[in-house]
């Protein structure tokens, strides 16, 4: 525990930061900081100086061209996370937002509309039930006595349709009828008072938006590496979350070979919430793994010997989301827990929880963030507590009295305005009294023995705040390696520093960027465009954790860096360090042209043009020359792998940090094999759950169009004519010169043989149960034979399509568009719950036959079952009416009935042009609102 004899000089001030904060793109380069006499003890003729930054570090060279998958793909879907387009007004980001000083406009009305459509029962349930007699859905004229008490909805629907058609027209006016309806209903139609609902929604939107800008729940990362017991051994464990909701905890044995290899299948635990953080520490030869989800924290004990299963020790439940969980490196079974209410607990498996502090306010100045963090220090009874404004150390034995400030955002550490603590970490394995603190601008190394004055400060220049950090301590006379990782941008930065005990802390060598997960996209086998896009989305998922392992083989050391994504995939990369280092030339790509000999490229001074003379034309010209010399590279600069929304140009190479000449390194055969295997796993997974490969869409265009309600007439001769014309055109390979608009084409009744076997589910189940093969029936229903059912469905769709094709070509076109979604929806609806009775009178309620599958009937029945109707928000009283409608046209193609609320709701929103637009196009997946 030596303290450096001499520290680097620095000023020490008090109070709020003076330096203005702002984007400082290159702030971390080119500075030596300060200098200090090197080794003053040694007698020498010439004094030598060492810089605080800029010394030489170890060289760690990546062995692969990109990150390589390390475990098979997470075997379940990944729901793409919220994108700004979901909640922002037209997805528009305000320019001023770039500076982070201004806000964006939330598309509040759209979300409210979505709520009405998605949860009509909650929004209008009781009044809908009360009033359903007063709404008429049909197209027929109302009878005289009914006219006084009933509104014809069809007319209103038409108005809305018309409104949609005119969407975007500045001269559009609400029709009097709509206006009248919305004025009439606004106050009483809603189940929840509109103002209250709007408040809640707005609050939720704000939360979502804040989460989009910066989500601190992942702080710390959910990936941990448990190294092998002996130094030489090669098998360690990875601890990470997985599963569909990231609620499974895996302990996977991993062998460190050339590339880390998963060995055997992982030990698995299913938890009760999304895993936010996994923290681990080794005490007395045993690893303690802490797992944090929002309302639960748990601790596992993992013996270092391989092959011994981890044992869960204890779980605590918090009423407020926990924001931090760290494991003590000193005492077995001790952890530090923080909650968002501002409480800090010392949690001991033996003696339970001890609250050290409870303070909803931040420590040094006021900041809104409820985020708190706590970690251990060199003294096992002293904990560091952090919020966004700084760090304090508390003695757990007397937390009220004994505490001191370790770090303050202020002039003490020479911070910038607006700087906030993002992640503190105890660097005990490098030096017992060192701490790392990262902010969105800089990283600091602190020493407990000299609080408030950073031993080291460096502007990390990362695009997003570093939420993850990992320390790989170096031995004596070696540098300590610190990895910093960010979430959304997947950045990984390797820093080295040395000193702290005898000599003052120095940053060693330049920082180094490691491969993000997205980097492997170009090395994966070629994909079809839409699959490529999905892959891009998957690989671009925000990072969720970071870990590293060291492996030593003689003179050669390797550092394996693991990165976890929110989709649950783990990628790794290997860096090697040669102990004998040759002054190798800078690693450059093959096609690089070297600068002219003798002159550094820096001195190719630009042609001197008088400043300030720039009239418009001249500027144009200058820009031109600039582009010419700057290569034409800027086209896809904003193309971000993390932006899944627009499907416009999926083929664009997705490189978040695209450079005109990216390293053309080719992946090694071993890596290529890994890529292929991973892709195989992914596509297999996709095949198993087809709905995952396609964004879910739910058509909410209209409830019933007039066409659908009309009586189908006999096959139109026009159809035959059109068909003939089309065939002819196809035969000739030409186009159709003029298409007669198919006049309201009378739909054809598809002559589907409706086998009588398709009985209602309840009776079929009962029959099956009676016969004794109830289990088989259940399997059949619950989709174990999904493939078979899908085949049946496809068959049905094909027939329907054919039938529609006879009817109208355009209809067939639209149906093929919605095909996938409908199919998936039906196949996903699972076993429809038994309906109260036969809905549509059938002749003989026999058990459903397995083969050949009766096309469509059970699903239709399911559609009409009161359960599913209720799911769609149709009030009980109206279901009968609806069924009657549907029963008439049961054999005909049925559009999924949509909730009636959708229309009414849209009328009731104080509307601008944009709100109704959502209906006109297939909606994106709904953001995960709190409802």
């Amino acid at each position: 525990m030596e303290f450096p004899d001499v520290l680097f000089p620095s000023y020490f001030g008090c109070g709020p930061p003076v330096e203005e904060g702002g984007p400082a793109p290159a702030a971390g380069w080119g500075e030596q900081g300060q200098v200090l006499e090197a080794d003053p003890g040694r007698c020498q003729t010439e004094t030598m100086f060492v810089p605080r930054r800029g010394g030489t570090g170890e060289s760690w060279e990546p062995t692969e061209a990109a990150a390589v998958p390390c475990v098979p793909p997470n075997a379940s879907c990944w729901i793409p996370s919220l994108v700004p387009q979901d909640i922002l007004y037209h997805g528009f980001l305000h320019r001023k937002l770039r500076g982070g000083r201004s806000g964006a406009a939330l598309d509040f009305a759209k979300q409210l509309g979505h709520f009405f459509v998605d949860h009509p029962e909650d929004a209008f349930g009781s009044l809908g039930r009360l009033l359903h007699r007063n709404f008429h859905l049909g197209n027929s004229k109302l009878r005289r006595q009914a006219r006084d008490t009933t509104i014809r909805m069809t007319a209103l629907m038409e108005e809305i349709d018309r409104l949609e058609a005119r969407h975007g027209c500045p001269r559009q006016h609400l029709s009097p009828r709509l206006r009248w309806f919305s004025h009439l209903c606004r106050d009483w139609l809603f189940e929840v008072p509109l103002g209250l609902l709007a408040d809640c929604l707005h609050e939720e939107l704000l939360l979502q938006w804040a989460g989009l800008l910066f989500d601190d729940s992942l702080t710390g990362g959910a990936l941990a590496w448990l190294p092998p017991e002996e130094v030489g051994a090669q098998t360690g464990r990875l601890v990470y979350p997985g599963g569909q909701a990231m609620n499974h905890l895996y302990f996977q044995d991993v062998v460190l070979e050339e590339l880390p290899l998963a060995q055997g299948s992982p030990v698995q635990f299913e938890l009760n919430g999304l895993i936010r953080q996994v923290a681990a520490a080794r005490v007395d030869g045993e690893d303690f793994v802490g797992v944090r989800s929002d309302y639960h924290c748990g601790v596992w004990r993992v013996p270092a010997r391989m092959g011994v299963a981890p044992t869960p020790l204890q779980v605590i439940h918090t009423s407020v989301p926990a924001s931090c969980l760290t494991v003590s490196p000193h005492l077995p079974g001790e952890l530090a827990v923080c909650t968002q209410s501002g409480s800090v607990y010392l949690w001991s498996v033996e003696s339970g929880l001890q609250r050290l502090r409870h303070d909803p306010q931040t420590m040094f100045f006021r900041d809104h963030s409820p985020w708190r963090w706590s970690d251990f220090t060199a003294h096992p009874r002293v904990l560091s507590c952090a919020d966004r404004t700084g760090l304090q150390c508390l003695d757990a034995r007397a937390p009220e009295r004994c505490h001191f400030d370790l770090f303050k955002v202020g002039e003490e550490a020479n911070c910038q305005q607006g700087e906030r603590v993002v992640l503190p970490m105890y660097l005990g394995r490098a030096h017992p009294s060192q701490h790392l603190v990262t902010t969105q601008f800089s990283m600091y190394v602190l020493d407990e023995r000299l609080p408030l004055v950073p031993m080291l400060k460096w502007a990390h220049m990362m695009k997003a705040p570093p939420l993850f950090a990992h320390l790989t301590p170096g031995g004596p006379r070696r540098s300590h390696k610190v990895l910093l990782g960010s979430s959304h941008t997947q950045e990984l930065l390797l820093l080295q520093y040395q000193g702290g005990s005898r000599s003052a802390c120095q940053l060693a060598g330049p920082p180094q960027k490691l491969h993000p997960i997205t980097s492997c996209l170009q090395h994966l086998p070629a994909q079809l465009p839409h699959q490529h896009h999905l892959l891009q989305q998957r690989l671009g998922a925000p990072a969720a954790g970071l870990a590293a392992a060291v492996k030593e083989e003689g003179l050669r050391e390797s550092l394996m860096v693991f990165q976890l994504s929110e989709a649950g995939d783990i990628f790794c990369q290997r860096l090697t360090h040669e102990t004998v280092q040759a002054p190798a030339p800078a690693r450059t790509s093959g096609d690089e042209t070297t600068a002219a000999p003798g002159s550094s490229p820096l001195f190719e001074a630009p042609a001197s043009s008088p400043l300030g003379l720039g009239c418009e034309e001249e500027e144009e010209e200058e820009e031109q020359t600039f582009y010419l010399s700057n290569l034409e590279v800027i086209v896809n600069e904003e193309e971000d792998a993390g932006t899944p929304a627009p499907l416009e140009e999926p083929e664009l190479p997705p490189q978040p940090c695209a450079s005109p000449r990216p390293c053309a390194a080719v992946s090694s055969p071993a890596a290529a094999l890994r890529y292929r295997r991973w892709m195989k796993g992914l596509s297999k997974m996709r095949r198993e759950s087809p709905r995952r490969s396609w964004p879910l869409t739910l058509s909410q265009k209209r409830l019933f169009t007039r066409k659908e309600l009309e009586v189908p007439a006999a096959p139109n001769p026009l159809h035959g004519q059109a068909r003939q014309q089309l065939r002819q055109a196809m035969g000739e390979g030409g186009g159709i010169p003029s298409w007669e608009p198919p006049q309201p084409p009378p739909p054809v009744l598809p002559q589907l043989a409706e086998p009588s076997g398709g009985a209602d589910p309840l009776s079929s189940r009962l029959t099956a149960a009676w016969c004794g093969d109830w289990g088989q029936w259940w399997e059949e229903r619950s989709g174990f034979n999904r493939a078979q059912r899908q085949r049946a469905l496809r068959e049905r769709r094909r027939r329907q399509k054919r039938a529609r094709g006879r009817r109208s070509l355009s209809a067939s076109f639209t149906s093929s568009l919605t095909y996938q979604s409908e199919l998936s929806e039906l196949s996903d609806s699972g076993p429809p719950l038994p309906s109260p009775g036969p809905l549509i009178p059938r002749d003989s309620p026999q058990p459903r036959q397995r083969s050949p599958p009766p096309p469509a009937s059970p699903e239709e029945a399911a559609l009409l079952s009161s359960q599913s109707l209720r799911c769609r928000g149709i009030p009980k009283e109206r279901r009968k009416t609806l069924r009657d409608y549907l029963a008439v046209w049961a054999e005909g193609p049925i559009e999924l009935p949509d909730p009636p609320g959708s229309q009414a709701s849209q009328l009731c929103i104080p509307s601008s042009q944009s709100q109704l637009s959502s209906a006109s196009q297939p909606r994106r997946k709904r953001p995960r609102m709190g409802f």
Partner: protein
Amino acid sequence: MDTFLEEEEAAGKNSAAHTRSSTLLPGLHLPFLPPHLCQPASSQEHKLNFKKSKEVCLRYIQDAMLQKQWKRAAEFLSFYVESLEKDFSREYVNPSEIIWRVGTEILCHCSNGSMREFNSFIEQMKTFGVKRYLKVCLEHAFHLLCNGLIDDAYQNLSLAESWRYGEQTAIQDKEMKLIQAYRGLLDYYSWSKQKNILLEHGLDGFENLSVEQEMHSCFRKAAVNLKEIIKIPGVWDLFVKCYVDLLEFYGDYNEAHQVLSEYAYNSKFPANPNAHVYLYQFLKRHGESKKSLISVLKILHDLVPSHELMIDFNTMLQKSRKRKRCRLGLEVIFAVLDYAGWKENVKAWSCLARQVKQIAIAEKHLDWIKQEWNSRKDWWPAFHFTHYLAKRNWKESESLSYEKAVVAGILLGKDCKYFKYVSHQGCKAQVKRFRILKKFVNKHNPVYLRISDPSDSSLKP
């Protein structure tokens, strides 16, 4: 039509954004808009404009540098230099600063140490802006110093010192002070060089007169500048050491003492342990009384209980005859061993073992141990005396495990896992002192009972 609409909408959004902007601020002031929020711009926005090209170019530079592709970065930088032509930006960091920083970094890594090239680059950079002139000079001097070009650095610093431009900002003021201080430091080094020459050749002789005169002038220059900077709150270990050395050489002890106590005890300065160490060493050098030494170390103990000087402190206190000091010694050594960094330090453990043994034999001040032990008994066993640690300590260092076993035996009794394991192994290995230790602990087991007994009223806590 569409564009018209967009414009109208944009106008509408403006007002909307203004009204709500306060509530929609990000929770953290981010340096950039999170990249995942940047959407692919529409075709219109894609029109290349100068600013964007600049940004992209800078990104390529950063990218190349972070992958250590210095040559590639240099090429891009040569394009980026064009951005100076239209540098009307009012941004926080303007292109010339970026070029300076990036260029310096690249040259440090890829010019193969050619100083000439580096110097000419920096000279160009100095002409770029007055705001940064001093900073660039200072960094340049640092670079020269680290490359052993001390004379060049000195020239540079003197040149920078004479620079005047209008009114100085606070930051420039600080930089100027630093420049002066570093020049003073270099003066000090040349002073000490000449001092060594004089000391080697004796103090007489005609030619030595000029050396002596030069030495004194160096002293004056150094002293003025160094004295100036150490008045300002900060960490000035290097400067203080040099200044005190100067003063001591010329026999100005009072001034030196004052400087050191000011550096250690002024509350405006950070709580730098080194300041106390310097004061302690100074007092020790000049044979000050034990009392004053102890008071300096007592303050250091309060500030940094884990400081390495605490071992010396403990030995000093143990030797003392005063009860109070012995008591403090026990406190100090217990506090040292609380820290993870001292966990395996034989010296610290032997200090504690010696003192505890003394007390156990005398059975006189058991309440001291009891008091210290009370706040530690719930976690020291798991922290220091586990079976795992016994095994490891025994394997790694026999003497450490011996010292620890002494303490464990007295504090936790003969049934303590640590003591049992180590004494067993020691007896097995036929080491004499372990056998004696076993006997000792068995004999003094009542001590343990009294320490651990909460109801023992004879030991008032």
